């Protein structure tokens, strides 16, 4: 894994609260190679967004981030803020879930897209303008000359997300983190945006960390998938391998609770119970209280993340047993 573009090991992010620190991310390790698309899936509260914000170090000051986040071999967590800033928007870019609020309502589109360029590239005014127009064209926005002068509220949600993507692509980053980029959009628009992302990624040989709760999106977009539950990685591997042969009861539970689009309708098989709250985490395997196969050990000890087959890891006592056998 030495060719990893991004390598996170044992990331623990916690928030200060009434009753001490609450672990939103509890020891996550993952890595991305250049040009690779990895999906990070999980339900709300599983820590996937916190993980992405930890990489960018955009968390509020009440958050404590530990572990290491190496980007091209350099530990971002050990850097000072001005040094981290050189990466943000330049080497690593990010797009967010809500295109409605992620753009500044009082700044012109053109100025906003130009912002990362201004921060990281020395360009003349002319060059800046041309680059912005080019970016807008790249993300498929019609009439770019006109759009640069407009304000976000004049655009539709899909258009705004394209603007966000244009902004993220401005400095041709090596890694793009897309945090639920299509959740707020309609399916037809989602399809457009996903297409765009795929196209841009291929063109720029950019790594993409796609954070989503939608397994369908992962299946369509990603090579690898990392499944998170309650702040921990429970399963990780090649998309086909994970979807065809889910090892963790949570992963298979998720897959089973989605209604099928094809074939006969069958009764859904939901996962029982609810996602545990941060303040109230089970001591052992965090999925144990909801797991149909839970055993005693599951309630007391947390399983480690083990390889079950090449590149397919799972964190489950059942898998450990299989491996042990």
């Amino acid at each position, binding site marked *: 894994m030495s060719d990893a573009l991004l390598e996170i090991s044992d990331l623990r992010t916690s928030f200060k609260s009434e009753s001490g620190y609450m672990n939103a991310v509890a020891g996550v390790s993952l890595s991305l190679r250049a040009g690779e698309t990895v999906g990070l899936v999980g*339900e*709300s509260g599983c820590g996937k967004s916190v993980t992405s914000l930890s990489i960018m170090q955009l968390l509020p000051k009440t958050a404590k981030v530990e572990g290491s986040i190496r980007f091209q071999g350099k530990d971002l967590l050990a850097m000072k803020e001005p040094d981290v800033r050189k990466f943000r928007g330049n080497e690593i870019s990010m797009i967010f879930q809500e295109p409605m609020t992620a753009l500044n309502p009082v700044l012109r589109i053109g100025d906003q897209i130009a912002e990362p360029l201004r921060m990281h590239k020395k360009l003349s005014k002319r060059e800046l303008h041309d680059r912005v127009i080019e970016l807008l064209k790249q993300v498929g926005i019609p009439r770019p000359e006109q759009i640069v002068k407009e304000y976000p509220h004049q655009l*539709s949600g*899909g*258009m705004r997300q394209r603007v966000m993507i244009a902004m993220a692509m401005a400095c041709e980053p090596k890694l793009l983190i897309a945090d639920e980029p299509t959740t707020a959009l*309609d*399916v*037809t*628009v*989602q*399809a*457009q945006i*996903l*297409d765009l992302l795929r196209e841009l990624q291929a063109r720029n040989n950019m790594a993409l960390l796609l954070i989503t*709760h*939608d*397994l*369908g*999106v*992962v*299946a*369509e977009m990603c090579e690898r998938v990392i499944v998170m539950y309650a702040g921990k990685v429970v399963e990780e591997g090649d*998309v*086909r391998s994970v*979807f*065809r042969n889910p090892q963790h009861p949570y992963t298979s*539970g*998720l*897959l*089973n*609770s*989605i*209604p*099928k*689009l*094809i074939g006969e*309708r069958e*009764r*859904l*098989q*939901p*996962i*029982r119970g*609810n*996602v545990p709250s941060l303040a109230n985490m089970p001591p052992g395997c965090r999925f144990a209280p*909801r797991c149909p196969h839970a055993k005693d050990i599951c309630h007391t000890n947390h399983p480690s993340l083990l390889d079950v087959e090449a590149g397919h890891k799972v964190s489950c006592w059942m898998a450990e047993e299989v491996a042990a056998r």
Partner: protein
Amino acid sequence: MSDALLTVSNLKKYFPIRKGVLRRTVGHVKAVDDVSFTVQKGETLGIVGESGCGKSTMGRSILRLIEPTGGEVKFENTNLTKLSKGSLRTLRQKMQIVFQDPYASLNPKFKIGTILERPMQIHGLYTPAERRKRVASLLERCGLDPSAAEKYPNEFSGGQRQRIGIARALTLNPSLIVLDEPVSALDVSVQSQIINLLEDLQEAFSLTYLFIAHDLSVVRHISDRIAVMYLGQTMELAESLELFEAPLHPYTQALLSAIPVPDPDVKRERILLRGDLPSPANPPAGCPFHTRCKDAKDICKTKKPVWKEVRPGHHVACHLYS
């Protein structure tokens, strides 16, 4: 499937756009424009469409939570649109609604027991003891512990709250429940619990559902028939499975093709729509979809297609089929 519980004919809801010094009405947002369908007793009619297509407005206009601008809604042979406020209030017992946001749909100041008893109080039904008993049994029926009655909404998770919302809708023994995106705000793992619950309740209480959602796979799963809306109009209506297997309208086709399938081996031909959804304040003339339709012809730009049954039980509004 012969007797209609709900008949909606030519339902319209226009919101005026006011402009200028005198706030004159210069136009209308046609949120619901001439929609007709029937819902049979005991069935689930799914309504799908993208945001802004008017599906929620339609749901609320049917219940007259919003006053419709035109058209007729017949519920068990009573014309709701003509009903006085008083009689409407009485009739509301039979029609209930479950909302999308489990956080906003329960009054945070009341205990669950109070929230569930309130409908019975409003209509003066049952004695206090009976009400409590009924609340307990409803909670249980919806998969919650009866002790929940003593708690406040903020002590529950989203899924649990949605169960409470459903329980509230059931307190008055309704025959029709409008489900307005009931699972959209929930996590996948919880969403399926609620869907199963809804299915169970429908069977137990022979309920009729009007299920409004944007998630096509959920709608497919729960609905007997599905209506597809676009810019305030129904584009297509058919049996659920038929619609998914053989969609007629180009919009339906595009919509269905856009859904990502959680199966890495299924690679489908995607119909990418051009451009954005037109503004409902200024919908295109003719067929509202013609601006983005791959099959659009000249006639589509000028003439509004008629809503017609092209196959038994399969309605569509498209010039391709006329």
